[in-house]
């Protein structure tokens, strides 16, 4: 879309100097045919994978103790999902994820702001943060268990601790990359601090913070499911491990499938949101 070539009379600019005033078009990242071909190939690969697995499991190439045919997994899924037990597990897992994410957000963003305002704090704490990130916080589970009891509490806290790290770091980086000229502008129009935060900082930072928030949510999912798998007595993650111990491969795979679908769904929705935000705000 090229601007100004309708040549309105009042604007002397658009008449002659088209080269000077042509508005930039928003560029697309890749040519469309390439992306469509790539998508086709991608689907082909995924479908092909399912077909190969189906064949391998049916012919006994892959042992039943290892994996059951995808068609059987689907059948198990269909019969499991309507059950009360599944409902209870699903509710438990999803609530845990949401709460863990909320806690991660509520702790992570202020932490990011603090790290931004006091750069020294970030430098000094960096080794601790990195070490903490490498330590499975699950090791503190016994303490949390004793303090909070055998419920979702310890899991929420552990998942939240995984979630808040990318959120805090991204917030810090985002705030750091806001052009200083915008601060000068706000000063020159005599904006109050709260006006600056709400009208300038927040909208400028949001598209940059969102990728971290997305990552935080993903870690909330991963943390919750992983912790449920090892430690809990309820929840989708737990159920997968449970069926493994019961040597019920089919149902175990059904729950693995649930986890996969859940994670991929969450990721897709968040990626779509991210693109929307970039388009509208960046």
């Amino acid at each position, binding site marked *: 879309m090229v601007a100004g070539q309708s040549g309105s009379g009042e604007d002397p600019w658009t008449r002659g100097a088209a080269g000077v005033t042509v508005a930039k078009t928003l560029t697309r990242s890749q040519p469309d045919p390439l992306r469509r071909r790539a998508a086709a190939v991608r689907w082909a690969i995924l479908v092909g994978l399912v077909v190969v697995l189906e064949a391998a499991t049916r012919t006994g190439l892959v042992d039943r103790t290892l994996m059951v045919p995808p068609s059987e997994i689907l059948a198990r899924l269909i019969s499991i999902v309507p059950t009360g037990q599944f409902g209870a597990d699903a509710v438990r897992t999803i609530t845990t994820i949401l709460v863990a994410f909320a806690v991660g957000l509520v702790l992570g963003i202020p932490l990011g702001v603090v790290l931004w305002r006091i750069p020294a704090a970030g430098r000094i704490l960096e080794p601790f943060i990195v070490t903490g990130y490498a330590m499975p916080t699950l090791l503190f589970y016994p303490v949390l268990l004793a303090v909070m009891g055998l419920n979702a509490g310890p899991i929420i806290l552990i998942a939240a601790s995984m979630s808040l790290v990318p959120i805090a770091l991204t917030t810090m980086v985002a705030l750091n990359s806001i052009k200083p000229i915008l601060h000068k502008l706000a000063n020159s129009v005599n904006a109050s601090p709260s006006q600056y935060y709400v009208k300038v900082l927040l909208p400028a930072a949001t598209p940059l913070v969102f990728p971290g928030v997305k990552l935080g949510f993903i870690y909330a999912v*991963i943390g919750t499911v992983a912790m449920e798998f090892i430690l809990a007595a309820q929840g989708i993650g737990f159920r997968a491990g449970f069926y493994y111990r019961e040597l019920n491969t089919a149902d175990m795979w059904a729950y693995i499938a649930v986890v996969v679908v859940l994670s991929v769904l969450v990721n897709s929705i968040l990626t779509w949101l991210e693109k929307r935000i970039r388009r509208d705000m960046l």
Partner: protein
Amino acid sequence: MRTATLPLFPRTTGRTKTRNPGTVTDNLWRAAVMVALLALWAALSVLTDLVASPAASFTALVELFADGSIYRHLNATLQAVLIGFLIAAAAGFPLGYAIGRSKFLGAVFDPIVAGAFAIPRVIFFPILLQVFGVGVGAQSAMAALAAVFPIMVSTTAGVRAINPLLPKLARSLNLSPLQTVAKIYVPAMAPSLMVGIRIGFSIAFINVIIAEFFAARAGLGLLTLRAYGQLDLPAMYGIIVLLALIALAGNLALWAAERRLSRKA
């Protein structure tokens, strides 16, 4: 410009200026933070029976080393981390490079990699147990499965971030493909690779411990669980400290390597 949405520490990807983690005042502050943490720990241990005191924990840890019982587990864990990490690197670097170099492969696989990253890989551990049986093999496989992602993603990002003039330069100098990769691409990608390696190491470490919690014959994770089961809290906390030290040591070593590499580059 379409870059892979890196599901990693945003700050440290691509254009990392290696930070120098060692000015004197900074280290003094860090020492202060450590002292504060130890004090907090000690206070907690007084307040509740569930937390063993720092002193008791350190003593227990030393005892474990003294009577040699820890070495079997230490070896198992470190072996699994190392093997898993090496496999992840062996697979991740070439794959990441291929995806990064080819626009088409990138378009095909970026969503798959991003989607796969979102899946808790721990859920596949039972399968690995079936294939490898209980032992270091299964833990290594778990670590490899998890660590391959950050390595792949950061390699892809590193390749994509290479200044497009560099390939032209290589051609104008008539370098062979091997020379091009070795002398121009690798140094250009080194910072990104190092970040991927550092994160890959951390993730391998975490996943080994988690796997050991679920099922293992030996390993520090298993030892922790056992100590907890026997209510030997000082030992449990002692091992946790050991794990923290290993994580810290590994990261510092890789950090130092990162710095030296970028100084040469």
